[in-house]
């Protein structure tokens, strides 16, 4: 078969190319320019070379934020992924209740990040919040503004409340695509519930599950609005995650140079993890297609 070669279709990509250039490439170039200079404002810059990178690599502050961030992301993934799968497995497969569950579960996803922060900030208050008041009346010490453990628990529960739905919806879609014949075959073989999950449902879900994990990893690794509204990074620095720390440095202290070096290293980590996930996902797709 002779294929016609026509490369003109590339021009259709031009608008997106321009959009990405202005929204991502030019800002990124500017950040790289900032990262090798120092400024005291007024658009006056002086060359410092790689000093900021060296300073940030050795900075205690960055190490601590990175540690907190890694811990938060790990906790969130460890809770949300199994919990999301569990809910998806137990949802009704068809009928009125299936649609009802889908709508209810999708609701938290529609709420903007900063509103979620505000909801939980009020919800946890001792004077007017339902959660804070109930816990206080039960005699449980809970104060997310002063107690580190309370703050962490609130942030984790808030994120689980907000984002488990995403994993549920993706897994549910994966489960729905499994033909009934698989389950019938398993029944004939008298497979246990666990075997059905392990050898039928999990392999069929693995593609969407990886996408879910990637999305949750990226989102939680770049989390900003929710903890910022809820705790503002406190008490002390206990919930200052990478992006909160970065914004404090760039906009709070106006240290544009170090903040740029910081954000570039942050970006590299995100880029590396995304690449790994993307590669794994596409190679799984290819294996599935064979």
């Amino acid at each position, binding site marked *: 078969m002779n294929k016609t070669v026509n490369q003109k279709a590339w021009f259709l990509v031009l608008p997106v190319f321009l959009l990405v250039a202005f929204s991502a490439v030019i800002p990124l*170039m500017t950040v790289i320019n900032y990262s090798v200079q120092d400024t005291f404002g007024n658009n006056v810059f002086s060359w410092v070379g*790689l000093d900021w990178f060296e300073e940030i690599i050795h900075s205690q502050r960055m190490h601590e934020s990175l540690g907190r961030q890694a811990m938060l992301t790990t906790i969130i993934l460890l809770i949300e992924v199994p919990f999301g799968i569990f809910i998806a497995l137990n949802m009704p497969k068809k009928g009125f209740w299936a649609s009802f569950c889908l709508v209810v579960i999708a609701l938290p996803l529609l709420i903007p990040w900063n509103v979620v922060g505000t909801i939980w900030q009020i919800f946890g208050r001792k004077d007017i919040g339902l959660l804070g008041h109930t816990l206080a009346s039960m005699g449980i010490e809970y104060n997310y503004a002063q107690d580190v453990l309370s703050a962490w628990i609130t942030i984790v529960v808030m994120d689980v409340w907000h984002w488990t739905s995403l994993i549920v919806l993706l897994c549910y879609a994966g489960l729905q695509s499994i033909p009934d014949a698989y389950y019938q075959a398993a029944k004939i073989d008298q497979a246990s519930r666990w075997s059905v999950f392990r050898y039928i449902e999990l392999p069929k879900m693995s593609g969407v599950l990886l996408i879910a994990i990637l999305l949750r990893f990226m989102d939680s690794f770049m989390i900003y609005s929710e903890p910022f509204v809820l705790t503002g990074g406190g008490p002390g620095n206990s919930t200052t995650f990478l992006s909160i720390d970065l914004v404090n440095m760039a906009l709070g202290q106006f240290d544009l140079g170090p903040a740029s070096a910081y954000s570039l*290293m942050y970006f590299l980590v995100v880029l590396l993890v995304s690449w790994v996930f993307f590669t794994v996902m596409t190679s799984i797709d290819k294996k599935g297609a064979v």
Partner: protein
Amino acid sequence: MDLSWMAWTKETATFFILIFITLVIMTIWAVKKPEMPRVGILRIETTRGDRLFLSLLGSAFICIAWLGFFGAPIYGGLVVCFFYALAVFRWV
């Protein structure tokens, strides 16, 4: 067009021009000599573009690690990056 807000320096401009030239060369190379993806030591399919991406990303990490362990200047790190990129293009 006033680009002073982007705080350009000679060094960063050179860096971007080099990357831009590399992309142009890779494009010309791809048009002149189209290629098939191949599977290397990472057991994943890669094209030349993938290998360039891996070289650049890995080089960034090598330079940062060099800064962390030995400090500036990073000429030694750049030499490591060069051999790393060669290895990526040869074996990945």
